[in-house]
Structure formats: structure tokens, C-alpha cells
């Protein structure tokens, strides 16, 4: 270590303390288990975040155990394991009573359409006889209320209608699918489905079952499973990129520098940038998304570049202080331009972009600050390395580039043609905002989810109609009308009543009308109850307590706690608005659905489509921010480098167009645009370093190492299973390769053109 001033030591000490504090803060936050977020939807803006009720849906899960004779035993074992976990709720014994209580006061005014018709079409004698038949029948269906409060079992009929299902009751409920029988285990996690601890509990139980009962098939449905797969995949991807990046850096650094001091300064720079980036992100957002970390791993690629430039320059000039002084402007200018490129993403409404921007900006600032504060402590370097590379550079690299630029006009024409061709190709690029690019679930899990939904006829809460009316009763009436219109289009598969709020809580006029019909046909003076009591040879004293008129109170305002999970229509219904969800297997075209919405003065929501639209908006946002940054960058370059600004602008234009056209495969997504940010960051750094210190062996070596490590690290993303990361990898690979190859060419071309221009002036030919 060389002598350094007291002020430098103080600055370094303060900065190191800050780094340690940031690292401790980050480690503690992660150790507490609250720092990392894996819900992909958390990256979207608040306007698209999930509601409380959607969150409650997110917590639920269903597992179907079947396809083997040991399925029942496996299901029992699974149920037992899940029930032993305090973080999980597996079924509830109290729910039936909640439903019975909800409808109990109104039994005599709730008629299903078929029951209504039945009452209308039959005489009091017939109705009494049927009631007695049902009483005597030892295999009668639902009779949830006692004879004295519901002698004609209206409640049983009503609940059969409202809760219709193909599920067979049992100690463990089951359902048949052809010859197969599936046992159903379901429940919910008490915390967030995105909490890794919750995921672990459910996954562990399933792993045990799969191990103990290898012949059974387990079908899974629920956010918790998708979140677990997403988290697993994101962690694996982070490992791939992180390990790949580190390995590449290590191999190159050790191979090239072969000094412990160099390794330490690189390690310190990487550690400080990561620690500061994470800490700042946690301070600003409280949680950091795993996807942010995955993309944030690119920070390592940028941060290490500054080290390469400083270390190589130090070797060239023999002193770290001198090297830093020569590089200071390019280091800070490069970092500032990259930070600016990321900071522009703060203009976007997308939370994910905010996190990414803050993470990168903080990390880059930290990397440069680390070099600024620690370089005085670097020992003088031998020039052996740079001399060796200087020889190679002069022998192979420079002549190659010079050969290419020996005909500057031709090369200029080639570049112009290339720009024009790429520009033309870019105009034919199409956008790809499909939500599938965010999908992190395996095909197996998606198939399993789909199968469970089909078998259990679960509602699809991502496709629904929303209805808003001025009054609760109008809302109920219109929801029934909308449901009737839907049924008319698919008469073979009418909507289950539990999905239509107006079918579960009929409008007041319907309740009044049904109450009148019940009085007329059953409870009134000429009603079937008289006949039934005669058949039973009973005075039926309890009949006095049966209601004689409509009972008000069954409205949307009635407390429905505990039953919304059984009656999904109530889950999203308020006094003035409701949501009508469709069954997962509803076979209606998009046109039909939108026509229905128009016809019923409702809105049809296709959440995947809306999220795709949101992605499109974010892509456009990010693109606009990028465009704005490029304009600003052009102005700054023009101000700083005057005529030479054509080099960064020309290079960046070419690099961006190559990345877009070749890296996106013709379809541009938001994540391609994000990848362009990294490309810009690295390309701008490269070009600024060349502009500041010239195209020579040390700048070329530093730029080569910077590009090579980044290409090696982030090129790995191109093989990712996650489309998002895959998109990122392709663009980064094409962009960095182009930047590395083209920047020196542009520099030499400009110099050559300038030289010829000057020569032309001197010779008077221009």
C-alpha cells in the first residue's frame, strides 16, 4: 500500500463503515424473511395490484389425490399432515352452520327456478304427498333444516340449487372422472401465498406424500404452488447468472492480473455495490423482488468494468493515483450516464422498474465511490502485463481495425447502409406484451392447475363481468338478467347459481313473489301443509311459528362472513357493484362476451389481457424514457465532445438497432427494452472510455474484459427457462458484442475521416 493522506484515509474509513452497515442491514432484513418478494404481480403498478378479496383467493389451494387404489390413504395422510401445521387452515367444521344460518330466516321466500315451476304446476294434495314421500325415503337428498321449520324442505332444494357441485361428500370429499376417483384436499395458507415459509410447508407435505405413495397422482391448484415454482426458478436463475458472472470475472481476473490486491479491489467493488444497492432498495421499498435481484445481477457486470479500467490503467502508468486522475472524468461520466439511463425508469408507473432503477443507480454510484475512495491504497503496479498486451494489440488488433478503416468512405457507406437497413427492419418490429412472458410455472403445473379447475368446475376469477348499479336491488336484478343472457348462449351449461349474486340473493320483488307463492301453495289456508299434517295424523302445532309473509333482510347488506368462500358470487359483491365470474371451461368467444357486456350495461374484464395491456403501456413508457434519455445523452455528448459526439451517437444508434433487430427476434417486449438499458450502460461506458483515453492497448483490453465478462455472464440468460430472462439475455448478448466490436471501428473511422478531412483542407481539395 502506498502512502496516502489523512483525508483519504478518513474518506475510505467512512465509506467502508457505510458498506459494512449496509451489508449488515441487508443480511438482517433477509434473515428475518421479509425482505424478498416473489409475487410477480407486485412488480406491477398499484392500480393493478390485487384486492383484499383477490388476496384471499390467492391464499387458497386445492390438491387432488387419485389415480390409484392407495389414493384414499394418501389423501388421509396428506390431510393429517396439513392439519398439523398451524400456518394452514384445512377445511372448517363451522362453515355449514354459517350457510344454514345465513338463509334460515328466509327459507319460505327462496325458490329455485325448478322449485318455483314445481309449486306452480302441482296441487296442494300432490305437494303434500311428495313431502311425505320424501320424509319416508331413507335415501332422501338434502334436508338441512328440521321438519318443523321447513316441512317441505325448501331449504334443501335451495341449497342444492345454490351449491350444486359434482363433488361427493365424505370424510375426504371426492369426485369421479370416468373410472378415476380423486380425493380433494383443500385449504388456505394463513399468510401470503408468496411467503416462502408457507410455500415450504405445503410443498414439504406434498413431497412426503409423493414419496410414501409413489403410485398416486397429485394434482395441484393454487397460487402458493405457482409462487413456489416461481421462487425456485428465480433463485436458480439468479444462481446461474450470479455464479456465471462471478466465475467469468474470477477466471479472467486471475488469469490476467494474477495479484491478490487486484482480486481484493474487485471483490470490494462488487460487494460494496451489491450491499449498497440492496440496502438502498430495502430502505426505499421495504422489500426487494427476486426478479429485481435477477436483473440487478447485471450490476456486477457494470461495476466490475470500472475496476478493469482502473487496474489496467494503473498497470499502464504505474500508479493508481495517476491512473485514477486520468480516468476520473470517464469513470464519473460513464457512471453518471448509466445512472441517468436507469433513473429515467423512475418516470414509469411500474414498481418493478422503480426497484430496478434504484438498485442499479445506487449500485453504480457505490462502485465508483469505492474506487474513488480506495484507489490511493493500491500499490504501484508492474507494467509487464500491459506491455505484453500492448504487443498483441499492436500486432493483431490495431492492424485489423486499421485495415477495416483504410477505406473510410466505403466503411461510412457500409455503416450508413447498415443503419438504414436496421432502421427499416426496426420499423417492422412487432410488440409482444403477452403475459406468458412473465410465466414462471412449468407446463406440468399449468396442466395440473387446468385439470383441477375443470374437474372441480372452479370459477375463473381472471375473466369476469363487473356490474355497477345505483341500488342493490337493481344490481341483483341485472346480474340475473346478465346470467340469463349468458345461459341463452350456452344452454347446455347454465351458470351455477353460486356464481351469480342475484341467484343467491334474489331481488326483493322475486323474494316477495316467491313468498306469496309459498303461502298460496304450502303454508296458506288452502296450502299443502294442511294435507301433509293430515297425512302425518298430526296437529302440527309448530306451524304457528312458520312465517306468514315476506321477511325483509336478505340483501347484500346481510353479513355474509364465513360463507363467501362457498358462494363466490358474494365474494366480490358490494351494495352497488358485483362481479360475475365465468366457469373455467366457459366456451364463449371474446366477441360474445363483449357483446353480452354491452347488452347488459356491464364491463367484461379479461385480467390476463388487461395485464398484457399494462405490460404494453410499461413497454411504451420504458421506451419513451429511453428515448428521452437518448435525446438528453445526445445533447450532453454534443456539448462535451462537439464534433466527436458523432462517435458515441453513431455507435449507440448502431448498437441499439442491432440489439433490437437481432436480439428480439422481431417481437419487442418490455423486457427487451429493459435489456437495452444494460446495453446502453455498457456501450456508453465503453465509448466514453475510448473517447477520454483513446483507442489504445489498455483501453481496448479494459473494454474487452468488460464486454467479455458481461457477455459471458448475461449471455447465460439467453438459455433461461423464463421468457423474461431469455429476452434479456438475447438482447444483451447482441448489444454487447456489437458494442465491443463497433466502438473501436467508429473511433478509428472518425479519426480517419477527420484526418482526411484535414488533409483535404490542407491540400485545398476541400
Amino acid at each position, binding site marked *: 500500500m502506498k502512502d496516502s493522506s489523512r483525508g483519504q484515509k478518513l474518506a475510505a474509513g467512512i465509506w467502508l463503515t457505510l458498506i459494512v452497515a449496509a451489508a449488515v442491514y441487508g443480511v438482517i432484513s433477509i434473515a428475518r424473511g421479509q425482505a424478498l418478494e416473489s409475487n410477480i404481480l407486485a412488480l406491477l403498478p398499484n392500480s393493478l395490484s390485487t384486492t383484499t378479496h383477490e388476496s384471499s383467493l390467492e391464499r387458497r389451494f386445492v390438491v387432488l389425490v387419485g389415480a390409484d387404489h392407495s389414493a384414499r390413504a394418501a389423501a388421509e395422510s396428506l390431510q393429517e399432515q396439513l392439519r398439523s401445521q398451524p400456518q394452514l387452515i384445512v377445511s372448517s*367444521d363451522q362453515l355449514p352452520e354459517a350457510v344454514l344460518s345465513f338463509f334460515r330466516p328466509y327459507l319460505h321466500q327462496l325458490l329455485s327456478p325448478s322449485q318455483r315451476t314445481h309449486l306452480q304446476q302441482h296441487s296442494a294434495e300432490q305437494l303434500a304427498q311428495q313431502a311425505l314421500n320424501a320424509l319416508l325415503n331413507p335415501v332422501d337428498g338434502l334436508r338441512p333444516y328440521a321438519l318443523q321449520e321447513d316441512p317441505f324442505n325448501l331449504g334443501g332444494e335451495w341449497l342444492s340449487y345454490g351449491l350444486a357441485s359434482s*363433488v361427493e361428500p365424505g370424510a375426504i370429499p371426492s369426485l369421479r372422472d370416468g373410472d378415476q376417483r380423486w380425493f380433494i384436499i383443500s385449504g388456505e395458507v394463513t399468510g401470503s401465498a408468496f411467503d416462502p415459509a408457507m410455500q415450504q410447508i405445503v410443498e414439504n407435505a406434498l413431497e412426503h406424500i409423493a414419496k410414501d405413495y409413489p403410485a398416486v397422482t397429485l394434482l395441484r391448484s393454487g397460487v402458493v404452488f405457482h409462487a413456489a415454482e416461481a421462487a425456485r426458478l428465480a433463485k436458480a436463475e439468479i444462481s446461474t447468472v450470479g455464479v456465471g458472472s462471478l466465475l467469468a470475472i474470477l477466471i479472467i481476473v486471475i488469469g490476467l492480473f494474477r495479484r491478490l490486491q487486484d482480486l481484493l479491489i474487485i471483490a470490494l467493488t462488487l460487494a460494496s455495490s451489491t450491499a449498497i444497492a440492496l440496502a438502498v432498495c430495502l430502505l426505499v421499498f421495504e422489500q426487494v423482488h427476486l426478479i429485481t435481484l435477477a436483473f440487478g445481477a447485471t450490476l456486477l457486470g457494470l461495476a466490475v468494468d470500472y475496476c478493469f479500467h482502473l487496474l489496467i490503467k494503473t498497470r499502464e502508468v504505474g500508479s493508481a493515483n495517476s491512473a485514477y486522475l486520468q480516468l476520473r472524468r470517464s469513470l464519473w461520466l460513464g457512471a453518471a450516464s448509466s445512472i441517468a439511463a436507469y433513473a429515467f425508469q423512475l418516470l414509469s408507473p411500474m414498481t418493478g422498474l422503480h426497484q430496478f432503477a434504484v438498485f442499479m443507480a445506487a449500485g453504480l454510484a457505490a462502485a465508483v465511490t469505492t474506487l474513488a475512495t480506495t484507489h490511493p491504497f493500491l500499490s504501484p503496479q508492474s507494467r509487464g502485463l500491459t506491455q505484453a498486451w500492448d504487443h498483441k494489440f499492436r500486432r493483431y488488433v490495431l492492424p485489423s481495425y486499421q485495415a477495416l478503416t483504410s477505406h473510410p468512405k466505403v466503411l461510412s457507406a457500409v455503416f450508413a447502409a447498415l443503419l438504414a437497413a436496421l432502421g427499416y427492419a426496426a420499423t417492422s418490429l412487432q410488440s409482444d406484451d403477452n403475459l406468458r412472458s412473465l410465466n414462471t410455472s412449468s407446463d406440468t403445473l399449468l396442466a395440473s392447475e387446468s385439470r383441477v379447475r375443470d374437474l372441480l368446475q372452479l370459477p375463473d376469477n381472471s375473466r369476469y363481468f363487473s356490474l355497477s348499479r345505483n341500488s342493490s336491488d337493481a344490481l341483483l336484478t341485472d346480474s340475473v338478467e346478465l346470467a340469463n343472457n349468458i345461459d341463452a348462449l350456452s344452454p347446455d351449461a347454465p351458470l351455477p347459481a353460486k356464481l351469480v349474486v342475484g341467484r343467491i340473493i334474489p331481488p326483493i320483488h322475486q323474494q316477495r313473489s316467491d313468498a306469496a307463492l309459498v303461502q298460496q301453495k304450502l303454508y296458506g289456508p288452502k296450502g299443502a301443509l294442511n294435507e301433509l299434517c293430515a297425512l302425518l295424523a298430526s296437529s302440527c302445532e309448530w306451524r304457528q311459528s312458520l312465517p306468514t309473509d315476506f321477511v325483509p333482510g336478505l340483501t347484500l347488506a346481510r353479513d355474509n362472513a364465513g360463507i363467501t368462500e362457498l358462494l363466490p358470487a358474494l365474494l366480490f359483491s358490494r351494495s352497488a357493484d358485483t362481479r360475475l365470474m365465468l366457469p373455467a371451461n366457459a366456451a364463449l368467444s371474446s366477441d360474445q362476451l363483449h357483446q353480452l357486456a354491452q347488452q347488459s350495461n356491464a364491463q367484461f374484464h379479461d385480467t390476463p389481457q388487461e395485464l398484457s395491456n399494462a405490460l404494453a403501456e410499461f413497454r411504451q413508457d420504458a421506451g419513451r424514457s429511453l428515448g428521452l434519455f437518448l435525446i438528453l445523452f445526445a445533447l450532453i455528448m454534443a456539448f462535451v465532445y462537439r464534433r466527436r459526439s458523432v462517435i458515441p451517437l453513431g455507435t449507440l444508434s448502431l448498437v441499439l438497432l442491432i440489439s433490437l433487430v437481432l436480439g428480439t427476434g422481431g417481437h419487442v417486449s418490455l423486457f427487451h427494452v429493459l435489456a437495452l438499458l444494460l446495453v446502453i450502460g455498457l456501450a456508453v461506458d465503453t465509448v466514453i472510455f475510448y473517447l477520454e483515453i483513446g483507442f489504445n492497448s489498455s483501453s481496448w483490453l479494459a473494454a474487452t474484459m468488460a464486454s467479455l465478462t458481461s457477455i459471458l455472464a448475461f449471455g447465460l440468460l439467453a438459455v433461461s427457462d423464463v421468457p423474461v430472462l431469455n429476452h434479456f439475455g438475447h438482447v444483451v448478448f447482441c448489444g454487447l458484442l456489437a458494442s465491443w466490436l463497433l466502438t473501436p471501428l467508429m473511433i478509428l473511422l472518425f479519426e480517419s475521416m477527420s484526418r482526411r478531412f484535414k488533409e483535404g483542407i490542407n491540400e485545398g481539395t476541400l
Partner: protein
Amino acid sequence: MLRFVFLFCAISLCTLAATPSGWANPGANQKPSTALAILESRMGNIGEIRGNFTQVQHLAALSQPLQSSGDFYYSPTEGLVWQTLQPIETTLKITPDFALHTQNANGELEKNRAPEILSRLFLGIFSGDTSVLAELFYAEEIHTEKEPRNSGWQLRLIPRTKALADQVASITLGGDRLIETVYFIQGNGDKREISLSATTLRRGEQAVQDPTP
């Protein structure tokens, strides 16, 4: 969704069940297969059985028991036909695929929407197929030397889940060579006691007239 299933389970089975909450929880520790094997051994090899029944229902809403009687017929190929003759004539049929058919207002048999579990349970008693019983209940054998009528065997079925137990206190099956009584007790105080008397029995290819010992 599962809660929905449990609701169904609970409210559908309350139809079958009965009352006096006097049953403790005795069968919980007994393996169902041991006790249910008795039923399976008595009813498992029936080729055809015909007989009559009487049913007595003690309902909280009625001061007098509700009595009914009629004929029944079971064969593995045709299922169960349950024909009530008194106090009114009515028929129900459970086919071997567990479909329940009951008489409509016009006297015609039509498919009933009752959950299949009830048909499986009732048919299981006649066929000796104890899988449904084992699924829903713990079973224990009761030794009732003091009751001459039940000198053969008695099984008590205790619901496996609390949700079911809230509705169904127990089911007791009794008999000798064949099943003779089915006694449902449900939580609300109602009871249903069915006495069966076989007049024709064929095990495999063998037909026996008046099999009563």
C-alpha cells in the same frame, strides 16, 4: 372449495341420521376393516334378496312416531328397489351405478339429485360393499348379549369427522345371518329405525325361501 364439499357432506348426511346424543365416541380406536368385515361376510355374497321392511321414525316435529312399511328387493345386477306400501305407496330405486330414482308427482320414477354418497351408503348395506362406510365412519362391533333380538351381531358406525358428527351421531347395523336392523340417530333428536325381514335369499346360485332361522 373444500369447505363447500364439507357443507355438502354435512347437510346431506343429516338426512340419514338420527339423534340421541347418548353415544360416546367408542369406535375411534378400532380398525374399521375388522368390524365391517362382519357386514361384508353376511351380505357380501348375495345373489338376490327379497323381503319386507318396517320403518319407524321419531321426529321432533311429531308427537307420534311416523311408521311405514313395504317391500324391498336387491340384486347386484338390478340394484335396490324400495317400495313403501303404507301409509302411502311410493317407490325408490337405486341402480348398481348408484343412481337414485324416486317417484315424481305423476307417480313416475325419475332420477333424483340426491348426492350419490347416500345411494352408495344404502346400497352398500345390502351389497356388503363396506368401502363407503369405511370412508365415512369408524366402525365397532357391539356385544349385546342382554338383547335377545340382537343375538347375532351389531355394528356401530361413528362419523370420522366433526362436521359429520354434528349432524350424524351414529348409525347402528344389526342382524344375524343377514342384516336385520338399521338405526340412524341424528344430532337434532330425530331417529329412523328400519327393520328388515328377508323372505327370499339367493347366495350365488342358491335360492332359499324364508331364510329366517
